[in-house]
């Protein structure tokens, strides 16, 4: 069965510092991976996806993610965090039928 794990419930970062939100996956076959963000009282917004090709994927709001097949990871990164990046982040893998399988979510808190 396919699964996604986000090992950290919460990540705290100072504004201006780099941030990483971790995600590991377990799939049979090629993984199709996604990151979504949920701001307070809002729906999930798509950030970026990995389907094939370059292992470094660039997305919205300056975020990027690195696909690592040997470590089965798809960590979300940003070189310089903003207070406005504070939100709930979800990693997901798409299964063969099209549905998304989500991780538990990671609460990112960026302090000034």
């Amino acid at each position, binding site marked *: 069965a396919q699964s996604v794990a986000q090992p950290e419930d919460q990540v705290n970062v100072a504004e201006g510092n780099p941030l990483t939100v971790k995600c590991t996956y377990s799939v049979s076959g090629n993984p199709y991976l996604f990151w979504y963000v949920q701001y307070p009282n809002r729906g999930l917004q798509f950030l970026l996806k990995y389907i094939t090709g370059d292992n470094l994927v660039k997305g919205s709001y300056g975020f990027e993610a690195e696909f690592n097949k040997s470590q089965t990871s798809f960590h979300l990164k940003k070189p310089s965090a903003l207070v406005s990046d504070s939100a709930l982040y979800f990693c997901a893998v798409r299964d063969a*039928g099209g549905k998304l399988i989500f991780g538990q979510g990671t609460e990112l808190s960026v302090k000034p």
Partner: protein
Amino acid sequence: EAGVTQFPSHSVIEKGQTVTLRCDPISGHDNLYWYRRVMGKEIKFLLHFVKESKQDESGMPNNRFLAERTGGTYSTLKVQPAELEDSGVYFCASSPYRGAYNEQFFGPGTRLTVL
């Protein structure tokens, strides 16, 4: 272009009552998905429509949940009778039929509280 909309945004009902959630996908999107996040846990899949047909309903928890998508446009998710464990946030998402690896566009969710 209007995004995915959901109604109501919040619903508070008593155990045993009936609630109907509505989702309007992005116009032209054939794929419509329902998901649920319970008690701060992971978001879990409920079911998937392609146009008006149920493609996958493997995530529906039990027969108290009924989803419809008449005419292949908006969808409703009815919970009857509601139980305490049904409380959570119900998300709807849509995506175009073509482009199997397109991202899904999510609505703002309906927060359901069963007392």
